[in-house]
């Protein structure tokens, strides 16, 4: 116990209590790009749920029915391979773009960044710019503070709830869901997930913000392994900037022995993770380029060339040539291309039919009459197509074998499954002893290209 207490006191010195970061709003090409990314990505997230496709929701992960609809395609649990490949593709693209251009993902596309930006906008609308927000933080509670804080939280909560609603809308048809919300008639699980996701959005984008990137994100910790000396990073040009110091606009700073950095601290104020980029590359940096925009604005005012803080590579900083094409880029690139092409090809070649064959476990074989032996199988048919089909089952592998199903033409509706009993009959003598391999083939009558083959074992008497 005493040891623990000791540790705690040591820790108190190691940590500065976190102060809320109020990033300064900046203008510039990178901020425009970031705003664009927020609008496009959130637009896709909130909009896509409402898109209809052939009479149903275009993107719907129908968990109760165990079917994923993505536009014209329907995925079943049997298509798990595609999900795995998709995840591999996502990981590979992350590697590829990190090696090429650094933490592009963090700065522009990560949901944490995107929703934090959206929440910051709301904070700006209600509480004003950075100075006003800092002042509001310090001011005692009065009616203005209550109004500004209150309206911010109302906006945040409404936005977060709508985010949760949209999230659930990808799993339960969103039109039905909106009716359910409007009539206060929502299922228990839907309500739970709506509130859960809404709460997570509100907490992550409103309060935790950069702490998610710094303390919680695994990618931030291992991304350095994907970097090399030719990866794009955001860096302060120390040679040009130092020694930093304040000066008047018309002063010849070089004569005074000063570098280009006027030490205005705008790059620190603009940083959403609260670091000083002039201290060098840090893992807290999410490469959002806000400091570049802030610094370029100052350089323009001072009539200095832009780019004191800029996108560059370690090699370029040291005056060595940067190479874009290097082994890891080529390998990641080729892997990405090959897997993408493979997935696309197999999607076009996908047969919208699957079948499982299970032998009857109770009886190995049955004598139908003196000339015929019969094995019974349970066949489960999965019609993955968007239209109904009639199928015919045939058998191959033993001479004069035939298969009897009732009905002979098996009708399975669109996106449905059916289980039938198939009786395979073989003349006595054609199959002696257990374990003859046979093949059952299911073919659609309307489209012979839609077929599925399964192997099974046929058991005969020992004689």
């Amino acid at each position, binding site marked *: 116990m005493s040891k623990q207490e000791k540790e705690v006191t040591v820790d108190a010195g190691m*940590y500065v*209590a976190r102060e809320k970061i109020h990033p300064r709003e900046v203008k510039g090409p990178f901020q425009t790009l970031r705003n664009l990314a927020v609008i496009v990505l959130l637009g896709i997230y909130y909009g896509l749920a409402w898109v209809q496709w052939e009479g149903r929701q275009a993107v719907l992960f129908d968990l*109760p029915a165990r079917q994923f609809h993505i536009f014209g395609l329907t995925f079943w*649990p049997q298509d798990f391979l595609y999900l795995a490949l998709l995840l591999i593709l996502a990981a590979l693209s992350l590697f590829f773009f990190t090696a090429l251009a650094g933490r592009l993902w963090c700065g522009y596309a990560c949901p944490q960044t995107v929703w934090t930006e959206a929440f910051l906008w709301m904070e700006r609308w209600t509480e004003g710019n950075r100075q006003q927000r800092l002042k509001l933080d310090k001011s005692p509670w009065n009616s203005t503070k209550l109004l500004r804080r209150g309206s911010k939280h109302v906006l945040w909560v409404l936005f977060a709830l709508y985010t949760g609603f949209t999230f659930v809308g990808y799993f339960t048809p969103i039109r039905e869901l909106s009716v359910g919300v409007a009539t206060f008639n929502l299922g228990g699980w839907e309500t739970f997930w709506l509130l859960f996701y809404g709460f997570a959005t509100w907490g992550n984008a409103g309060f935790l913000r950069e702490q998610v990137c710094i303390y*919680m994100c695994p990618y931030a910790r291992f991304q350095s392994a994907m970097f090399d000396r030719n990866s794009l990073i955001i860096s302060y040009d120390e040679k040009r900037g130092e020694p930093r110091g304040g000066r008047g606009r018309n002063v010849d700073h070089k004569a005074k022995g000063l570098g280009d950095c006027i030490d205005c601290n705008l790059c620190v104020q603009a940083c959403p993770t609260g670091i000083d980029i002039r201290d060098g590359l840090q893992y807290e940096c999410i490469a959002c380029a806000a400091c570049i925009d802030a610094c370029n604005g100052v350089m323009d005012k001072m009539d200095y060339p832009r780019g004191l803080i800029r996108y560059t590579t370690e090699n370029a900083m040291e005056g060595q040539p940067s190479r874009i094409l290097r082994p890891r880029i080529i390998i990641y690139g080729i892997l990405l291309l090959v897997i993408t092409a493979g997935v696309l090809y197999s999607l076009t070649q996908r047969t919208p039919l699957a079948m499982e064959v299970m032998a009857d476990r109770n009886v190995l074989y049955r004598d139908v009459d003196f000339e015929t032996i019969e094995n019974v199988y349970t066949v489960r048919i999965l019609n993955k197509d968007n239209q109904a089909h009639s199928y015919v089952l045939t058998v191959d592998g033993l001479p004069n074998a035939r298969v009897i199903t009732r009905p002979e033409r098996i009708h399975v509706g669109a996106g449905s499954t059916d289980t039938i009993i198939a009786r395979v009959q073989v003349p006595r003598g054609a199959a002696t002893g257990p374990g003859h391999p046979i093949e059952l083939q299911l073919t659609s009558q309307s489209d012979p290209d839609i077929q599925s083959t399964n192997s099974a074992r046929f058991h005969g008497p020992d004689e």
Partner: protein
Amino acid sequence: MTKVWCLRCLGSTLWPSFLAAAVASVVFFASIDPETLRMQTLPDWSISRMAGYTIGFFMFWGVGLLSSSLTYLLSGGISDRNE
């Protein structure tokens, strides 16, 4: 101090276990239907598939949380990290 400590503690246990639970749920339920599982184990207990997924997810999260918490405890908590 205690607030910061609490946040770190939650951040390094709740969050990794959440990620692991998400992956585990996807892989597990892609191959196993909660409906079949219920039929074979507790046929009298009538719950929906959605409830099955939710219970599964929180079970994975709970197990992950236990493991993360033990790791956190055994590796000395926050005193060795983030200096």
